[in-house]
């Protein structure tokens, strides 16, 4: 395998349940060694996609390749680690026993297994915990879930909402761990927590209604969308100017900011840069601020998937 081979390639993936297209022809390229965020609101199709990628569900159409191999290739499962959104453990086992069992399924034994089990128990903060898993809190189970997904030192780590059940400290620990894996392991994780994506991801795909709305590097995404948003502030008559702006062909939305200014989403940046000063001058207002807006991933996300909810 070369680094040019994407760790995960998804092409035309479709999953239909009756009349519902849960996943609708999505394409994804996850570069080797990246931390890739799979972002989307609840019900967007993230878990379904992950279930297909891991072979737990069957695609209605399309193809998934992991490290260049088909997901039906028995060797593929040796290269991946997976944590489902709600991991199920045998309640009668301890964390150590579950990790040993998981390692055994990969054929790991002897001192290698001992070393990994010890290291992962430390990582999960479960060293010395003799309680059976049945008595664990959801956070403890989630941490054990991450640990078991790493038992085979996977080349590709697939995580479904790995931080959703964790407290802020637990979340930080898991995210720090993902950052540490960057470059060595390809991490693909689904989430609806935007802060997590901003914190650790190199690339992101945003999913909505089963389709990939956009797929890019996190910085690229920010700059792509910030270039199309202008922040304006004038000395008075903000409402009248806002109405003027809404009527322009190049304007696709105007929002009032809490600081007294307004954010204008534009379809033609050059036309807007010429048009805004002219509109301000026509009303006899003083232009106090005109700048490209700095926006976070949250605003990109809301722009891309939240429009229909507003």
């Amino acid at each position, binding site marked *: 395998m070369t680094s040019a081979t994407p760790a995960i390639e998804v092409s035309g993936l479709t999953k239909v349940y009756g009349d519902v297209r849960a996943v609708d022809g999505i394409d994804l390229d996850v570069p080797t060694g990246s931390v890739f965020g799979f972002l989307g609101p609840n019900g967007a199709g993230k878990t379904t996609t992950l279930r297909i990628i891991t*072979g737990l569900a069957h695609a209605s159409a399309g193809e998934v390749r992991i490290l260049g191999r088909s997901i039906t290739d028995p060797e593929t499962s040796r290269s991946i680690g997976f944590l489902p959104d709600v991991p199920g453990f045998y309640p*009668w086992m301890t964390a150590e026993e579950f990790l040993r069992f998981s390692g055994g*399924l990969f054929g790991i034994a002897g001192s290698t297994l001992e070393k990994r089990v010890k290291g992962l128990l430390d990582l999960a903060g479960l060293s010395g915990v003799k309680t059976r898993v049945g008595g664990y809190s959801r956070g403890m189970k989630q941490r054990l879930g991450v640990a078991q997904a790493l038992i085979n030192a996977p080349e590709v780590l697939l995580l479904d909402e790995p931080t959703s059940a964790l407290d802020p400290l637990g979340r930080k620990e898991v995210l720090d761990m993902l950052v540490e894996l960057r470059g060595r392991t390809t991490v693909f994780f689904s989430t609806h927590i935007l802060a997590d994506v901003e914190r650790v991801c190199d690339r992101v795909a945003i999913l909505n209604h089963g389709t990939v709305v956009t797929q890019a590097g996190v910085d690229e995404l920010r700059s792509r969308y910030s270039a199309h948003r202008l922040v304006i502030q004038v000395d008075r008559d903000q409402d009248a100017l806002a109405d003027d702006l809404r009527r322009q062909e190049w304007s696709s939305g105007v929002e009032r900011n809490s600081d007294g200014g307004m954010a204008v989403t534009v379809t033609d940046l050059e036309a807007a840069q010429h048009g805004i000063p002219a509109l301000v001058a026509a009303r006899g207002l003083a232009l106090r601020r005109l700048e490209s807006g700095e926006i976070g991933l949250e605003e990109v996300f809301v722009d891309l998937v939240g429009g229909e909810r507003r």
Partner: protein
Amino acid sequence: MRGFTQFLRKELTETFRTWRIWVLPGLLLFFALTSPVIAKMTPQLLESVASGQEGLQITIPEPTYLDSYSQWVKNLQQLVAIALLLTTGGIIAGERSSGTAVLVLTKPVSRSAFVIAKYLSHALLVIVSTLVGAFACWGTTYAVFGEAPVSRIVEPTAAWLAFALVLIAVMTAFSAGMKSLAAGGAGIGAFFAISILSLWGPALRYSPAGLAGAPSSLLMGENPALVWPLLTGALAVIALVGAAVLIFRRIEL
């Protein structure tokens, strides 16, 4: 079959660490120890009932080891069979609903290894606990009656075990595609269907249904033709476990 040995080891450990070790083995041991005592006490119990009723006289022949064995076989054919069906309803469905199957099957474990290990571990539990039960019943019968021919308990117990292995295969197939409760219900339905089918001559002679009533016949000293029921029973086990594998491969987790 990727992951078979490791998963079977987990299944066997689970047997000893959970309720599994108590339910069927406990039930079998209970019936093994009480069957001889109940057989011995039955005349006295009936006598005490009759003594309170004027004019009622019950004559019961002196019980023998056969009454003890008969009690054991009856319990196997009815109560233990029902308990077996109910406890194996979740043989596969239980791991699906708890989410444990997801963590196992995203590792190098094939679905066929998963299903076959499930069948074998449950079959092993039933075989071992039935043999222990039969031994306990034989010992208690000897202690109570002073006579307990081994062959008279071994043959009916072995015939029941053959039938039990078919029942576990039926439950494995049901549980691969249904929820635990539905599989348990379907299993009981199948059990009664087989029992009714065994009343029909050709089914009795040539199908696994012939195994359903075989333990009682063997105990009574009859010599039922069991070659075809055993042969078709073995084929049914292979076909049902194979069907369970095919169903489970198609199931989405």
